[in-house]
């Protein structure tokens, strides 16, 4: 027997968008699908438990981003030791030193995104990695547009310092 929830249609309509956002964080197409399904399953559990949901799409996106980050962090813990080896095993590239640097930079940035405060991370993932407008981010995160912009700016500043400043807490300089 198939249970049809009042939110089923909106949840299914949101699924491609959930997969897209999750894909940016977990960086794996199959796992992104799993994340979307898990988010929908959690929504079912939440409504069954009597939780009041104002925006189904917003609830699902926030849940999907949380699940994605948890999965990405777990994956990073398993993989951390392998990155340097992975970068070194690309000898056919024209400049191995440059490849090594690029791979390390990309992976360091991924880690830094995962470590951002929740709202900043969600905002920067939706804005920079998934191409959403500030208006869309505001709707999904249920915050104002100005707050969404502020989260994205703060996240960018933190990420820039993480990548290029010797001391991320320092203002200017290397």
């Amino acid at each position, binding site marked *: 027997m198939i249970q049809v929830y009042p939110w089923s249609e909106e949840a299914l309509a949101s699924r491609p968008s959930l997969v897209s956002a999750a894909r*940016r*964080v977990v960086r794996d197409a199959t796992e992104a699908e799993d994340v979307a399904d898990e988010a929908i399953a959690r929504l079912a559990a939440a409504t069954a438990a009597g939780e009041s949901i104002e925006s189904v799409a917003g609830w699902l996106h926030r849940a999907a981003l949380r699940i994605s980050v948890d999965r990405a962090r777990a994956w990073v813990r398993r993989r951390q030791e392998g990155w340097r080896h992975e970068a070194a*095993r690309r000898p056919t590239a024209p400049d191995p030193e440059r490849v090594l640097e690029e791979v390390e930079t*990309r992976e360091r940035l*991924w880690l830094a995104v995962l470590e951002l405060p929740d709202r900043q991370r969600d905002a*920067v993932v939706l804005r920079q*990695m998934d191409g959403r407008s500030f208006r869309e981010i505001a709707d999904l995160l249920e915050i104002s547009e100005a707050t969404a912009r502020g989260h*994205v*700016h703060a996240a960018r500043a933190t990420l820039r310092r993480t990548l290029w400043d010797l001391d991320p807490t320092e203002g200017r300089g290397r």
Partner: protein
Amino acid sequence: MIDETRLESLIQRKLDGELSDSERVELAEAIANDPTACRRHDEFVALEGLLFAVGRSDRPALEPDLSPFADDGAVPDEEEFLGSAVGLSTIFGALALAAILWIGSMWVPPSPTAPPVREIAALEVCSLSDGFLAVPGESANPDIQIVWIYSLQQPAEGNVR
């Protein structure tokens, strides 16, 4: 020199596509006159590209590569490998193996030695006793006389007329 907070604000607004004309001029002047501002601008622009790339790249493989060259972390250059002693030995070994296999496929085993032809003629069929027939034959050797003895199959009783 432009204030750092102001500089970052201008760069971020530029990335969001929200700069006014006057702000655009202000940022352009700062980038042109201040190397630090220029570098900061380039870092934010690079960050944009990296974030986009991270979201679209697959994460690195989790399992280690178990290929034969994984131990030393490098795949040998093709020319270097072919010129080495190991490479030459491998090539000659492969050629020798191919030659053996080719020769083997061309070899046809001789047919087993044919027995001497014997011309056996049934000259006379003799009944030795009930159920047995003796058929004399001839062999290629005149000193040898061959007699074929056949056993007749007994019919079932019900079929005897």
